[in-house]
């Protein structure tokens, strides 16, 4: 097992390098003089000169890439001109807030989605199945940012049950209950779509598995039906559900950009959008590479979980 994890980590190196190449190439598409373009409205002669020196912008593309990469490996993501602080500090701070939000939403979507899918499949064409299928359809059709806005209107403005936005109350907040109260709406709004996708997939994976010969074998040997569903079928279905949970983590991370804006959550997504609008390219570059790298590592964890579940994967 340890050697498998090591192998997967090693194989992630080219993927991580690929990510930096892709981000670098996309940023190289910026037309005009790179320094001026990167700095945008912060392009004072001083700043332009400094950036040219830092990134070697007068050098050829390949050399520039390696300078940039070398800096990043040593933890130097450059300096954000709009915030006037090191990019990495800002990202790390913001990413923690995103992790709280996206992590909660991911756990919600996994638990609720699988549960809904299993119930739906076990009661195929029954009332529960129809109700779940319909709810899921609504869930995956509604834009998360619109759902969030409607939740604010209903639960915060009209019913006054929950705070409108933010991560902590400005006065007297900061403890866990306060965080949870602020977390409920954004996490639910963020989880809605992913839950729908996981539920659909779990349902069809369960239906597929329930038709397999080994389920017939389990029934033929007299295994209790509850165990057939929750043991034999769900376990086999998890083989196709787990990779989707990995993919959904990416969708939840993506969706958090919108939710952070709607709920003014101080996360990395809001930071990225602000940075794009202010054309703070170094912050964008650094943020994208950092989050993508975390996502790659997370997917390795998913693969390891998959290999623990499925002995047919060579470890």
């Amino acid at each position, binding site marked *: 097992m340890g050697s498998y994890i090591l192998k997967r980590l090693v194989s992630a190196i080219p993927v991580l390098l*690929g990510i930096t190449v892709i981000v670098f190439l996309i940023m190289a598409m910026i037309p005009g003089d790179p320094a001026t373009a990167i700095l945008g409205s912060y392009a004072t002669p001083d700043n332009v000169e400094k950036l040219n020196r830092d990134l070697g912008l007068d050098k050829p593309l390949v050399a520039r890439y390696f300078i940039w990469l070398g800096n990043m490996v040593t933890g130097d993501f450059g300096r954000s001109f709009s915030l006037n602080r090191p990019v990495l500090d800002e990202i790390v701070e913001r990413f923690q807030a995103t992790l709280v939000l996206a992590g909660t939403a991911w756990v919600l979507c996994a638990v609720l989605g699988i549960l809904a899918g299993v119930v739906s499949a076990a009661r195929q064409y029954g009332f529960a199945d129809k109700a779940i299928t319909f709810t899921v359809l609504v869930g995956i059709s509604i834009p998360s940012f619109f759902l969030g806005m409607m939740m604010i209107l209903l639960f915060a403005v009209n019913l006054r049950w929950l705070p409108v936005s933010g991560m902590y109350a400005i006065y007297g907040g900061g403890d866990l209950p306060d965080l949870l109260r602020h977390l409920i709406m954004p996490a639910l709004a963020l989880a809605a779509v992913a839950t729908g996708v996981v539920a659909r997939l779990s349902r069809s994976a*369960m239906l*597929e598995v329930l038709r397999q010969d080994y389920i017939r*074998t389990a*029934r*033929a040997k*007299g295994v209790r039906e509850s165990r057939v569903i929750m043991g034999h079928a769900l376990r086999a279905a998890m083989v196709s559900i787990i990779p989707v949970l990995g993919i959904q983590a990416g969708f939840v991370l993506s969706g958090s950009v919108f939710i952070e804006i709607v709920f003014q959550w101080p996360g990395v997504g809001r930071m990225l*959008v602000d940075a*794009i609008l202010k054309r703070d390219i170094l912050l964008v570059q650094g943020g*994208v590479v950092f989050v993508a790298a975390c996502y790659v590592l997370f997917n390795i964890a998913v693969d390891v979980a998959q290999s623990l579940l499925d002995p047919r994967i060579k470890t």
Partner: protein
Amino acid sequence: MNFLALLFRNRLAAMGAVVLSLILALVLITPLLPLVDPDVIDTGNRFKRPFTEGALLGTDHLGRDLLSRLLWGTRLSLAVGFAAAVIAAVIGSAVGIVAGYFGGRVDNVIMRVIDMLMAFPYILLALAIVAALGPGLINALIAVAAVNIPFFARNIRGIAVGLAGREFIDAARLAGMGHMRIMLTELLPNVLPVIIIAMSTTVGWMILETAGLSFLGLGSQPPQADLGSMLGEARAALITAPHTSIVPGVMIFLIVMSINLLGDGVRDALDPRLKSGALSRPMARTKVDRKGPIPAGSDALMDIRELETQFHVKKRVYKAVGGVTLSVRPGECLGVIGESGSGKSVTALSVMGLVASPPGVVTGGAVRLNGEDLLDMPFEKLRQARGDKVAYIFQDPLSTLHPLYKVGDQLVEAIRSHHNVSNREARKKALSLLKDVRIPNAESRLDNYPHEMSGGMRQRVSIAMSLANDPEVIIADEPTTALDVTVQAQILALLDDLRRSRGLAIIFITHDFGVVAQLCDRVAVMYAGRIVEEGPTQEVLDAPAHPYTKRLIACVPELGQGRRELAAIPGLPPVVDNLPEGCAFAPRCDKARDECRMGDVALRGGAPRAGAPRAVRCLFPEEEIA
């Protein structure tokens, strides 16, 4: 035609289609409608409520007419969403087909790049592209199309790999076709439905994604508005003027919902597996819906009487088993022989309610074990009998053992489902079972997964599992068909030993006369869902009474007779949803007369009992039977 009929039979899909066409129609005639210019600012009339004079849906924060903005915005959103979907589908599918067809290094390189693109949460890539190209609707379109290419490429590649390994691709190469031609004329038509399914299920997504970018202010730029930017601009006034948010939000929801409904409908209509109703889950027990009277039983250990099992697929009724009567005594081995589609396996599965249902239904007859009818037994009691009194061995041991459980655990489970014993005791019993079926190094084999064993070893595990609770009857459904002949010989010898030493009754389903001859005391021959002949194996083989039996035996080549012309039966077995009247074999039988094609032909001869004479379902049998 067929596709549309299928599509609209799905009511939800039809609903989606109606809503979507309404929206599309509205959007198409928008330029012709008497609407206010969507971009005219009138700050004096800002935030007018819906249904006020001159503004059906009210006005926004700059006093612009919301209805006009909504329709023009919908037009834009739909155009951009569809364009992105088409671009992503075309490029992604082309990449996927090339990678899947060529395989090897080409595939490797392409898929590495695709994997890297998929290593980004999609919004990051889109944000990076927009950051580089600058905010704007066309750039947002490019970004959305680009982040969806990997999805298509990967999906289509998966299908293409499967197809590229199929034999018709080899055949095309042998017919002299080049790579390009094979990809375009052999592969593309076969992946096209998948591309359409993928598109119809992702168009909604792409509309959402472009709306999202516009919502963030990175898509369409003012004053031009699509649905996303309308929502984005309205957000500031969410609490004071919620209608400015609700109007575009509901429109996005309606569009995406109707596309999703329609997309699901398209998928269901194009997916051949769903067409045959195969994706429905078999219930824990076959549905029983007996119309006629329930026949009386006999004193046999297992007694199947006039069993009828049908498959109801849409309006068609397949009479897979049409009144089968069989029985076994302790220690007896009964062979049931027939070609594919003869109903032999369905008969076997009907006994313990294991026929997949839907679509299977037991429509008549009785199955008794020690005099108790298994068909109307409460489920819990039937479950307790499964594996404990009647056990099964199935054909392909790789697909019939659970791939994720160790074989030892599967054996333990079989024991503990019926006996309240500790895990350790059950494991001890499992070990002795593996030894009984002569698996070498049984201790270490307990911790193997099925895929770590050879076919013969896996089938031994299946046999061990069937023996776990000392059942009275074992039903073996083609247990050696998937095995090599040297392995088959060992498995047959093992089964024969076990039945003699344990006094088991075996019902052995097979298509092989050689196997029946070596293993079974009695044999029943099935054709088109009915038994056509029954009797002691040796007698039936030596002097078959039914013309079908006789000619079928003649078809089987036997080793040691050298090169020769083989006997054949002309024609094909009938399809069981359209059985001919009278004898089902009559159309292929050279002795058939007019009487054979009219009315039911009864099974004549003695009752199928111990040492009883033979029975045959023929008006003009080859041998007169006593």
